[in-house]
């Protein structure tokens, strides 16, 4: 449930064009080969400052490789990328100063307290001495861990540790925060909390958020989604637009006389189909149309259901496969994931 207030505060969603502020991330024809496997192939996109941008795809699709290139941890085979205005190949250290990183695996020191972990980070990222304390207070506050600041990280739950890592990623006021599968292994409540943290940080600190996920429901928090499959971008747009591509809403009706209802609705020029247990009417904005459609049908209606396309369907539409692990095709996906990790 993305808070409406944060959504409203989000900056323009369209990619930056001339005259607008320079993009936070700009990627042109990026490719990365491991041996004869194309982990990332001819990928181009740009992310506006303050945008929440999600990279969505199954394991091994090229998400982690892309994020590693953007964080200057891996060199691309060809193509270019600029992050926070700096070239990832030419000025990697300038890039690293301006980005926050949250990895799939935990990277906290379990034997230090939350605050000690942050202090360490503050020094490595050269936060001026006189600002360290106030900045630590601030990020701990952002993730609601102020009470636990003096506790050893080894006493933290997985969710708390993850949120502490996000706080740490924000400590040095990065232009972009990168999160690689940040919600992997977290329970739904913790995932929701983490998203609140991220959206709050975007709203209050203006940070650009770039994350990868293979959870469809999560991608809906994003301003824009790029769908990546087998190293290629197959779609990129707002969640609403991506859904619109897949199809209109459908209003499903069960009526006392389906035959008569179909005739009346077709007579009104609507796209209507008979289904096994009723009729489906394809319209834009189905929820708003329900009352009118029932009126047009002109027969008693027993049951109404409005179906909106989900990102699962969007993914299926663009890739021909379901994104869930364990589904058809996931085995080859896993094999590719292993190949890419090891390389």
């Amino acid at each position: 449930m993305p808070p409406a207030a944060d959504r409203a505060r989000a900056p323009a969603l369209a990619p930056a064009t001339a005259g607008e502020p320079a993009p936070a991330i700009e990627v042109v024809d990026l490719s990365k080969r491991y041996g004869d496997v194309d982990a990332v192939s001819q990928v181009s996109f740009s992310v506006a400052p303050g945008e929440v941008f999600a990279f969505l795809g199954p394991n091994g699709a090229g998400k982690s490789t892309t994020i590693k290139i953007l964080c200057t941890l891996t060199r691309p085979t060809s193509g270019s990328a600029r992050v926070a205005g700096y070239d990832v190949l030419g000025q990697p250290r300038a890039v690293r100063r301006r980005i926050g990183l949250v990895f799939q695996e935990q990277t906290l020191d379990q034997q230090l307290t939350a605050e000690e972990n942050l202090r360490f980070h503050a020094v490595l990222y050269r936060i001026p001495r006189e600002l360290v304390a106030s900045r630590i207070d601030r990020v701990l506050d952002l993730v609601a861990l102020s009470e636990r600041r003096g506790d050893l990280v080894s006493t933290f739950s997985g969710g708390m540790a993850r949120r502490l890592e996000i706080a740490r990623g924000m400590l040095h006021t990065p232009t972009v925060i990168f999160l690689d599968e940040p919600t992997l292994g977290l329970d739904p409540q913790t995932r929701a909390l983490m998203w609140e943290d991220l959206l709050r940080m975007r709203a209050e600190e203006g940070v650009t958020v770039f994350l990868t996920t293979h959870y469809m429901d999560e991608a809906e928090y994003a301003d824009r989604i790029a769908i990546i499959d087998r190293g290629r971008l197959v779609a990129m747009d707002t969640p609403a637009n991506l859904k619109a591509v897949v199809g209109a809403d459908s209003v499903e009706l069960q009526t006392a006389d389906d035959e008569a209802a179909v005739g009346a609705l077709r007579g009104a020029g609507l796209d209507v189909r008979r289904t096994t247990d009723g009729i489906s009417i394809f319209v834009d904005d189905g929820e708003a149309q329900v009352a009118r459609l029932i009126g047009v049908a002109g027969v008693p209606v027993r049951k109404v259901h409005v179906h909106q396309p989900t990102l699962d369907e969007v993914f299926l539409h663009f890739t021909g496969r379901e994104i869930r692990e364990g589904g058809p095709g996931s085995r080859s996906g896993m094999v590719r994931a292993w190949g890419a990790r090891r390389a």
Partner: protein
Amino acid sequence: MSTTSAPAPRLVDDRVSPGEELRTIAMVWRRELIRFSRTRTRILSGFVQPILFLFVLGWGLSPLVGTTAGFDFKKFVFPGIVAMSVVTTAIFSAMSIVWDREFGFLREMLVAPVSRLSLVLGKTAGGATIATGQGTIMLALAPLIGVHLTVPVVAKVIGIELLMAVSLTAFGVFVASRIQRMESFQVVMQLVLFPMLFLSGAMFPLNGLPTWLTVLTRVNPLTYAVQPLRQVVFAAQDMPLAARLRFPTGITIGGHDLPIGMELGLVAAFAAVFLVLAVRGLGQTE
């Protein structure tokens, strides 16, 4: 340089600054000390092992070796045990890099916009501080053994311990940077650390050895740290000539005694080489 319309001020500073690198070294050093102070088992085992060696070797072998002009094997082996305490502590401190890798924290350090040299120097300084501390506390056992120490002698011993600790920690950091798993580190250390210790003259005098053993002790870099340590301690003892001949502290190569300065210079060179290798080793990890 900030291109965003963000409300939070960016705290980014791209200038190269030796002060900031020093700050990083100090922070990495501090983390090592904090972690050490929180692992009681490590502190305890750091003392138990050398004391065990001192008692077993010292009291166990003394009757066998006998006493030369009032000087026994306990007194001979004592500086060797101090060195051993420094060496093992230094190596095991360096080993924490393998833990850092396993628990992910190494990544936090390696992706940070700091030089690898600062990380290695901080890590080395931390390990060396702990190791020197352990070795120095061992000196408290000197009266028990009958070894006489003065303030200048202790100061010199600490200096040599520090040099020894830095070079062994740097060596350990290099090994750890090339190793992925804890098990491998322990195997490597058993194949490297113990031979180095045993062939350094820590446990037996370096005179009158068969040629092959003499060669091995002379190519062992640790020899050039252990012997000066013993030399400094023995210089303060009231030792008759017979005892000095029985337990010599010099290193002879081709019939020539090496000056202590050259011995310590060799150790310093060893440290420098492994600092460079450690930086390069870490550079290839990420």
